[in-house]
């Protein structure tokens, strides 16, 4: 679901520079990176802004009697800025240049309409006569003759793209109500000319274009509120074609007229329209709206009461528009459309799919997710293969240019890269992550990974997930799918990490984990890298299984003899009791996993119904383990296991009670549980008796304590000390 998010003011606009008069600004172009934009007003000034900080970084002005006539652009290759003033004077300067008069200057022979700058290529200069030159060719001979292509037509709009590594410039012209479209390829120099079908009642207001599968498509917004789509078939260069148009979207009801409107493409199915709806009885109202072209629905809209200039730019998930006397930035979110999203039924957990730096949208990069046939699948994999080489090269470039990876980049890579690539990128990303909203970012990343996991069953980036969980920035509610996926894959290590790290695992999931842990065979856990910290204090984890556990001395005065004092214990039971006491009923890995369960937070009321899902076998096994823990625990003086993450005696007791509460009737009926219950009962009774006896001699014990405390070491003693 596309949505408009927060809105902030980038800067105020000076009325004298034409902003107040509804003329808007001359241009807004992307700066050297995605967070900077170059604003050129209709007067004399070009300003570089940092968008996230809402502050200007640099400002350059021409002399009093000069006017900038072409918006300043950033040459991404060199980091320089290029602008034209007084139609013919070209200026090139850098960030550190202060005085505009002293920067590089070249006077051209023809008037410039606009300069277009694209990443990884030379800027293109479009003259008012329709001729196109690359900047370096122009600078090599500034005084060269510039031909006139468009016999006194007026250029209305122009845009540049990269198509298969070659820059393409597309511009539209108007002459006496007739509109023409030119497509100029620079290398080799090919020019196509098309003519737009004439419409009686309306005229084009705004154009935009995109390229997909080497086909240029032009979108045109007419004043009657219709968006038409025209694909520019490139046939024979010489002849002029009439463009056929197909209706893509109808924005307004019939009797209203659109004025001063702009159209922008957001992604494959979304366009944004900024316009003034002028329906005669009412007053005109201006609004910004996002439309889904696939389902023809209005996704969101926002009224702009203070009026706009009808200009709309969108760079990197942000709209830039003049609103009243200020330049406003509106952040938007736009997700891949599905029917569910279109009707508003999709949960709002998905992150946006498309993030573009320039307005140019290359849909070749989009993953087609709904391809089902094996042939198509194959082609997709082939495509990803070929893309990988491309990407790795691009990554290298990216590394050279800026050493930090942006979230946007990572998110888009998560959609289509291979596991290893993602892992590598994620490591890089996490290693230099110093951002303020780290938690949110990690959340985005993991949601992205989860989405891919769900759509692509073979995709399971285990190491990435482990890395992300270990950042400690996650919680269950941030990525509810994670544990479900891990359960599905029975990734016990990941589940253990989740249980240890997440503060808010719901009881249902805890129980599902418990069930999964109890049903896994011990042998299959042998090789997993479960963290054994919590069991190390009471299970010897040496690899050979036949470890003869020597009986530890019983420290707190309790011995198993106490249990045997009543004569109604049958011999078989006794041996059973001895057995459970001697050996842990589960392997160390499973024990560690169960300990993670014991440690997790829960609320009894919510846990009990889910606990009932356990099968009788599982209950008995868990009970036996809990009993083992309990006996081990009470052997220690401190009644606690040393070390981190070991269960405490209270946790053991609570879980034992809960389990018995949930399954009491079952356990009572089970023949194999009888002995267990019986020995538990005996043990607890013995403990209670022991503690009540202890209570009786409490006074004497306190005296002992006092005596021990008062012991003075005197002035000199020789002691033994062992440091381990």
């Amino acid at each position, binding site marked *: 679901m596309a949505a408009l998010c927060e809105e902030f003011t980038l800067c105020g606009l000076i009325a004298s520079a034409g902003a107040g008069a509804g003329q808007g600004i001359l241009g807004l172009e992307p700066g050297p990176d995605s967070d900077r934009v170059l604003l050129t007003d209709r007067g004399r000034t070009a300003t570089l802004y940092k968008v996230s900080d809402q502050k200007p970084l640099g400002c350059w002005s021409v002399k009093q009697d000069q006017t900038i006539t072409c918006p300043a652009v950033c040459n991404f290759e060199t980091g320089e800025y290029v602008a034209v003033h007084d139609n013919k004077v070209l200026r090139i300067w850098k960030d550190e240049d202060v005085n505009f008069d002293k920067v590089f200057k070249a006077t051209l022979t023809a008037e410039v309409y606009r300069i277009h700058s694209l990443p990884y290529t030379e800027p293109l200069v479009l003259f008012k006569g329709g001729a196109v030159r690359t900047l370096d060719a122009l600078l090599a001979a500034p005084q060269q003759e510039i031909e006139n292509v468009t016999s006194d037509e007026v250029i209305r709009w122009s845009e540049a793209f990269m198509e298969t590594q070659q820059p393409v410039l597309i511009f539209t012209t108007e002459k006496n109500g007739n509109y023409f479209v030119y497509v100029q390829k620079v290398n080799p120099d090919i020019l196509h000319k098309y003519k737009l079908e004439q419409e009686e009642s309306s005229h084009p207001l705004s154009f935009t274009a995109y390229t997909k599968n080497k086909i240029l498509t032009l979108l045109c917004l007419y004043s009657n509120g219709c968006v038409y789509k025209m694909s520019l078939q490139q046939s024979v260069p010489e002849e002029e074609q009439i463009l056929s148009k197909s209706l893509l979207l109808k924005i307004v009801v019939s009797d209203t007229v659109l004025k001063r409107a702009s159209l922008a493409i957001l992604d494959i199915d979304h366009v944004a329209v900024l316009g003034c709806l002028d329906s005669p009885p009412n007053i005109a109202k201006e609004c910004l709206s996002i439309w889904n072209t696939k389902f023809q629905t209005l996704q969101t809209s926002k009224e702009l009461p203070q009026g706009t200039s009808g200009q709309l730019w969108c760079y990197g998930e942000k709209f830039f528009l003049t609103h009243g006397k200020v330049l406003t930035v509106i952040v938007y979110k736009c997700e891949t459309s599905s029917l569910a999203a279109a009707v508003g039924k999709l949960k709002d957990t998905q992150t946006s799919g498309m993030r573009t730096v320039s307005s140019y949208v290359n849909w070749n990069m989009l993953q087609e997710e709904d391809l089902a046939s094996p042939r198509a699948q194959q082609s997709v994999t082939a495509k990803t293969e070929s893309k990988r080489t491309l990407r790795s090269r691009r990554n290298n470039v990216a590394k050279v240019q800026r050493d930090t990876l942006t979230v946007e980049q990572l998110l888009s890579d998560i959609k289509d890269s291979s596991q290893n690539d993602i892992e590598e990128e994620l490591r890089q990303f996490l290693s230099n992550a110093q951002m303020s909203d780290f938690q949110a970012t990690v959340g985005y990343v993991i949601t992205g990974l989860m989405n891919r996991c769900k759509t692509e069953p073979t995709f399971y980036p285990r190491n990435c997930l482990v890395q992300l969980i270990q950042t400690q920035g996650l919680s269950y509610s941030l990525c509810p799918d994670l544990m479900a996926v891990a359960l599905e894959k029975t990734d016990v290590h990941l589940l253990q990490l989740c249980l240890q790290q997440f503060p808010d695992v719901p009881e249902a999931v805890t129980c599902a984990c418990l069930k999964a842990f109890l049903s896994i065979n011990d042998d299959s856990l042998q090789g997993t890298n479960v963290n054994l910290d919590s069991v190390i204090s009471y299970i010897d984890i040496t690899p050979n299984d036949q470890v003869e556990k020597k009986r530890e001395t019983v420290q707190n005065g309790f011995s198993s003899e106490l249990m045997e004092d009543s004569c109604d214990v049958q011999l078989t039971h006794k041996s059973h009791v001895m057995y459970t006491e001697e050996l842990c009923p589960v392997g160390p890995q499973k024990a560690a996993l169960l300990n993670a369960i014991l440690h997790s937070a829960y609320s009894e009321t919510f846990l009990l119904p889910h606990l009932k899902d356990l099968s009788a076998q599982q209950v008995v096994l868990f009970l036996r383990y809990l009993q083992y823990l309990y006996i081990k625990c009470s052997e220690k003086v401190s009644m606690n296991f040393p070390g981190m993450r070991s269960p405490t005696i209270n946790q053991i007791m609570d879980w034992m009670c809960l389990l018995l509460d949930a399954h009491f009737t079952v356990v009572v009926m089970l023949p194999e549980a009888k002995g267990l219950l019986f020995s538990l009962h005996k043990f607890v009774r013995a403990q209670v008796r022991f503690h009540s006896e202890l209570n009786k001699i409490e006074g004497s014990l306190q005296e002992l304590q006092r005596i021990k405390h008062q012991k003075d070491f005197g002035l000199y003693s*020789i002691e033994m*000390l062992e*440091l381990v």
Partner: protein
Amino acid sequence: MGEFQVHRVRFFAYVPAGIRCVAHSTRSARLALARTNGALEVYNFAANYFQEKGIPGHETRSTEALCWAAGDRLFGAGLGGDISEYDLEKLRVKYSLDGFGGPIWSMAADPSGTELAVGCEDGSVKLFQVLPDKIQFERSLDRQKGRVMSLSWHPSGTRIAVGSIDLLRVFDVKSGHAIQRILVDRRLRGLYSCECVVWSVAFLSNGTIVSSDSVGKVQFWDSEKGTLLETHPVSSSAVLCLAVSEEEDSIVVGTSEGAVYQFQLLPVKWGSAESKWVRTKPFQHHTHDVRAVAHSATALISGGLDAQLVIRPLMEKMHGKGYDAALRKFTFPHRRLVSCAKKAGLLLFQFPQHLELWRLGATNSAGKDGDILPVSRAPEHLLQLKSKGPEHICCSCISLCGSWIAYSTASRLHLHRVHWENGSVSLKRVSKVPKLLSSAHQLLCSADSTSLFVASDQGAVHVLKLLEPGSCGHLQTLRPNSGSAEAVYLLAASADGDWLAAASGDWEINIYSLRQFKPHCTVPAYNCAVTALAIHPVTNNLVITHSDQQVFEFSIPDREYTTWSRKVQQHGLHKGWLERDTPITHIAFNPKQPAHILLHDTHMFCVLDKSLPLPDDATPLMNQTTLKQLSEKARRGYAHAFKICKKYQPLLFVDLLEEGSLVVVERPLMDIKTQLPPPVQQKKFGT
């Protein structure tokens, strides 16, 4: 891993002297502190509150007042009637000048730091001019009756407020006349009233005088009109000292009940311009008289007769609740007072005026961890060596075999040969000790007891040859190439007698070759004070600890930090280790375990095992109790390099004897408290 027989020694009857006065210098972030025995200490707040300098005391010198003036020059004045300037490079009194006014009770430097005002017993206030290398008497203000207990300059430098018995006066500095005389309330005790001593005054820039007196009140006066503005009864006994913050919005006072109170200038209502002094925070960190307080920008500093220096950071001036905001208490000097003859099992204790030699006891049984073994031979107090003259001992040492004892006072080096004859011990003084031009700041005997290293001024180390049967001669003087002005305060010699490391007051560590008697190299400069040095007997690596708790290992043969040291720096030390608040004061080695380094501070000792992995912040630093409960195999995965024992504290000294047993010298605070005079009687609830 390491099982030790520990000689737990508590018979070192060291009692630190009470704190008499302090002076804080915001400019250099240093605190000067004078003790009741005349000793002076300088703490460097920037170097994690390390006591970087010490000047030993003197019988006849008792410092009543300290002040920083003319930059970083330190002046003291006392009841001897002298004003002294301290030489902080050579660590001694630079010169003394008689004030000719009887005992001096108070001294203060004017705001520009060019004049000193001293208050004398005879009731005069004398002004001294601070000249580049001396001070000169300028003039006296009008002499009045009654001793001048306290004085304070007005921040403009034109007035001086003077506290005397029963009254306060304000002097005009230019004319020298008393322009205001304020009577202070006496306390009524029965029918008689007893005199009121104005222990401390402060002159604020708005003309308010703050006084604290023996009646227990802190009072605010208008110096123009001579009227009382506010009275705050603080204590039932005397309020001995007060200090004002630089912004004049906070005052700290110390009482004879051991309590410290903060007063703050707070607006009467939220947002109102009118503000009032309010007593805000009480602190009770001392048991005895708080004789001195100071107010730094972020902390209250107090020192008392219980010998404790307490630095209480103000939470409102701190960013968050971190390590910097923790309370600091200093009771013991950051210097070694004990030396150990490892081969002979002897301990030499250094007191201000005498030395004690003890022989450790012995046992012939063995035991396991935690056992107390029966003592078969009790420890023996072999001899007591009294130093002659009024000067206090500044350093001492005993040779490893126990046959030489050396100590030094500010002016003289003394050397004694100890003779052991069938169980009895006799001492022979070496009569012809070479006259060294400067005083000794640290002494050290070489491992084979043939030479004595004397740390001296200007980075120099004198090497004396110890000759049998009992004489010595000057062999060499080692000087650093850099020409340091600061005195050497730490020495370390290698076991093979080839190398000597010396750290001087500018934190430079020079390493000398003793074969060629010339400088070998300098350890790369590190911008924090060195607290201990030692050279490993096997590898000849120099282990250095700094007051910011960093540990470095420097290979002397290779003239570079060792790979282990680099690894430590790369990995970073554990947070728990870095946040200890006392410096490492001694380093020892276990020749049988070359990878082990023994370090100790006041509250713990640690065996640093270089072969084990370093802990990261997630693992607990103190893991001995946990490890002991684990099985042998499980321990291996959890052990880390720092094996810390906190069983013995406060620790003054830890060393490893020749035969592998450990000697720890403890000085329980309780034992010190019993030596102190009884505190002011206070009614406690329920008694």
